[in-house]
């Protein structure tokens, strides 16, 4: 990209959004503004959590950054390149399991390599290495339906890592897991993040999760989604989530979210009453 496309920021930033907005079904009667006026810079290696009530457009922003959807307003860059299409540099991990059920675990992990036409030996080696990093090398030849929900998400993480992404995009990846598994998966994710050096953008509506993981928490307003505020978390890692500091953060974030949830509820009620 030429420098005039991106005059106001460092090209080294992992993700840059300027005036980004998304209107679904634009130009039709069902047009619906999901996201507006998003300005955001994410540094390389930074862990950023998007926090907001359901339907606030935080997942939409993730899809825009992934390049799976086009922004209707504004522009996005990643490492100085304009985001126009999906790229293996920005891997997306979904809430529900997104493993291919007809492939074995290692074939799933090396799917991206097979797209590039890599040999079977190479694919197996890379898959073994990625699975090693998520502690599932022993499950290489199993099928997804033989794994638990937590294991499947770890395989999904391994599949993303096998592409050596510089940005990991995670759309409520642990939402379907039970509380204990989720806590373990958060620790696991922090290890993976530290080892890989990638930036992580992590969508959640769980305040606890945000406090446990984030360098910065981006709090969203609801409908249309805007950035309400960005809360930096300066606690050292590993974090004591029972500390006074963590508790204060949770209180602060809860207050910020409550306004939005109240507003969303009021809107829904107004919507439900016939005019």
């Amino acid at each position: 990209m030429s420098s005039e496309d991106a005059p106001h920021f460092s090209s080294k930033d992992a993700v840059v959004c300027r005036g980004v907005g998304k209107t679904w079904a634009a130009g039709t009667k069902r047009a619906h503004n999901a996201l507006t006026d998003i300005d955001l810079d994410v540094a390389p290696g930074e862990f950023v959590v998007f926090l907001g009530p359901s339907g606030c457009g935080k997942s939409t922003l993730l899809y825009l950054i992934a390049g799976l959807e086009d922004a209707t307003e504004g522009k996005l860059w990643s490492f100085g390149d304009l985001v126009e299409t999906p790229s293996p540099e920005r891997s997306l991990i979904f809430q529900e399991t997104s493993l291919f059920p007809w492939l074995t675990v290692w074939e799933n992990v090396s799917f991206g390599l097979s797209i590039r036409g890599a040999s079977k030996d190479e694919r197996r080696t890379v898959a073994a290495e990625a699975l090693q990093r998520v502690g599932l090398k022993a499950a290489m030849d199993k099928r997804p339906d033989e794994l638990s929900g937590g294991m499947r998400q770890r395989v999904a993480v391994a599949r993303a890592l096998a592409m050596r992404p510089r940005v990991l995009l995670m759309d409520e990846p642990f939402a379907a897991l039970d509380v204990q598994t989720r806590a373990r998966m958060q620790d696991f994710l922090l290890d993976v993040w530290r080892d890989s050096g990638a930036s992580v953008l992590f969508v959640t509506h769980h305040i606890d999760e945000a406090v446990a993981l984030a360098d910065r928490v981006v709090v969203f307003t609801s409908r249309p989604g805007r950035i309400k505020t960005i809360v930096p978390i300066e606690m050292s890692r590993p974090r004591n989530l029972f500390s006074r500091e963590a508790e204060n953060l949770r209180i602060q974030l809860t207050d910020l979210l409550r306004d939005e949830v109240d507003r969303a509820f009021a809107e829904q009620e107004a919507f439900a009453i016939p005019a």
Partner: protein
Amino acid sequence: MAVVARDSEPGAAAGASRPAAASRLMASMAGLDWLARIWWAFLSISLFAGLWELCWAMGWADEKLLPPPHIFLDNIAEQGRYFNTATRWQVGQSMTEGPSAFESVLITGAATTARVFVGLIIASVLAIGVGVLIRYYRFFDRLVLPTITLLSPVSPIAWLPVAIFLFGIGNAPAIFMVVVALFFHMVLATINQIDTVNTNLINVARTMGASKAQIYARVIVPAILPGMLQVLRMNLFGAWMVVLVAESTGVGYGMGQVIMLARNTFNPSLVFFTIAVIGVLGFTFDWLLRLAQRRILYWLPDTVERLRVL
């Protein structure tokens, strides 16, 4: 029967709520599952045949019109004379030459089954191909889909004259009828299957840099296979019905031709015997397809178990 051994059998959870003795009995029966299934099939058919025999014994069913199983199954050799007449009733050939009556039944059954099978294969390959092309190329979609939607409600019977105009008599019109009966529905089913593929799977492939062709070949086609096999099984019985109609027009030999012969010669015994043979053939075909389905689609869980616990 399950091809993939699973760590947690869904049945095990259900067994826990039953009395221990009963669950132990169930566990010891598990290995004999197939035997139990045959036993139930036998019981089901016996019950049906028994009711029929009862009607005959009570004098409610006239044996000239509704001969019960013990009558129409009594003399297979006699019935078999009407099968495979194309080779057995040739000019200059005596009735004692050529295949025996039993062999004739087999030959006729195999011929009809082969027509169904070939028709099914051709229809599936064409329908999946066309369905994928319709979704792949928007141009093709706009050009072809209206015609397919227009033709899909037409009864296969209406195609019968066309089959004869185009292919005369023989195997070709019978196979054509099967293909035409299945093709249009299966195209629409393919499109429906493609539209309901999990978006996440497609998005995963997109983020990994897969091209459109790669996404279709490696994600969409494998993802629609389970649904398509289901569609195939649903249409299998339709294929069996249509092939009989086609054969009754004079293919030379086939189950449909025997039915027609029985009708024209007023032979109820032969009608019911043929129906029995067709039933067994169709049942076996469906069973084999189910077996193939389980082997090809190893990743699908056994959904029947889900309802069994209710």
